[in-house]
């Protein structure tokens, strides 16, 4: 089977690659096109992007610092920074959704 791209997104509150992940998402295309039975994870798979890089993940996007103004400097919205990592894994047969 061919190798296809899996994506791991680490969400952080500073843009640095050694910043702790506070939220995370797996998009494992090698396993299927969606998540049908979500399994809770209390800890991220890696504490930060650098630890993931040491396990073979490649950084394909890191965040830039944001400019702040008097208007939005205190505003709260989505988590401000993210690192997108990729790894190629062998394509697997997709399991059927039970829902």
């Amino acid at each position, binding site marked *: 089977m061919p190798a296809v791209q899996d994506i791991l*997104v680490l*969400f*952080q*509150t*500073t843009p640095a690659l050694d*910043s*702790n992940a*506070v*939220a*995370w*998402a*797996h998009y494992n295309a090698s396993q299927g096109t*969606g*998540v*049908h*039975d*979500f399994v*809770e*994870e*209390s800890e*991220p798979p890696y504490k930060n992007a650098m630890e993931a890089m040491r396990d073979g993940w490649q950084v394909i996007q890191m965040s830039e610092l944001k400019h702040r103004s008097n208007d939005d400097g*205190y*505003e*709260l*919205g*989505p*988590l*401000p920074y993210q690192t997108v990592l990729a790894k190629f894994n062998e394509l697997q047969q997709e399991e059927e*959704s*039970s*829902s």
Partner: protein
Amino acid sequence: MKDNRLTAKEMAQFVASGYLKFEDMVPEDLCNACLEEMRQNSRGYLAVGTPFEDTWPKGTALGDTFRLPQVQGLIHSLVGSDPLYDHHAAHLVKARQMRGADMHQDSVIDFRENYFDIQLSLFPTDTPDEMGGTFLIPGSQYRNVRTSEIGIYHHMRGKIWATCPAGTMYVWNTRVWHGARSNHTDQDRYMYKLRLNPTQPQVRNFDTADLDDPEIGQILSTNHGWEGNEHRYELMQRVKLWRFVSDQPDYDVGERFMRRIEYQPSKSVA
């Protein structure tokens, strides 16, 4: 009413974390009757924006539940007297129904300051972990997002979920990030949700006897695990809401970060 109101420390916890949990809120026989009503009539809208007391059905289990003195005290503490009915739904995750990440914020983005709607969530049966009780992200209520776009956050530090005995009620700020979870049991999982709006400023509707308790500052400063570098900015939002609900316009904690906005001697000269 007075005996059933929230304490100031509980109110501070609501301001900091966006939710409170109360076990043994609804007696077992009433829970069972509510469950039957939920099975028959799952969701819908009544007259949105009308007085709750006039609109909410009487002579039914769900009608009686939300009129229990302990529930009325809770409602009064947060949205005052004479709240408006806004929305209700019996949420069902069927036996063996699997769910995805599902993180979302209800309704639509809401920028209103010195204001919050509440949602009451009743779990009418025992809801163990494997049954997939609703999850919440404590403290997320100050973040402006558009409904389901936060589904990108599959996992988040600090996430909690309802694992509780029958009769437990959660009350939460409508803006708290949350979602449903997979039900790995052979029983359907129900949760009944009711949203209410205030009709008056939400100021000192709770029991203020412990308003000066120094622990309140610590409660407002709670770190839920996901805030990281944003914690100071979260704290400023909590302080702003605490000032309002407690009617203490100069309240601040620790380094008093609100001074970075408010201390401007040049303006007082003019």
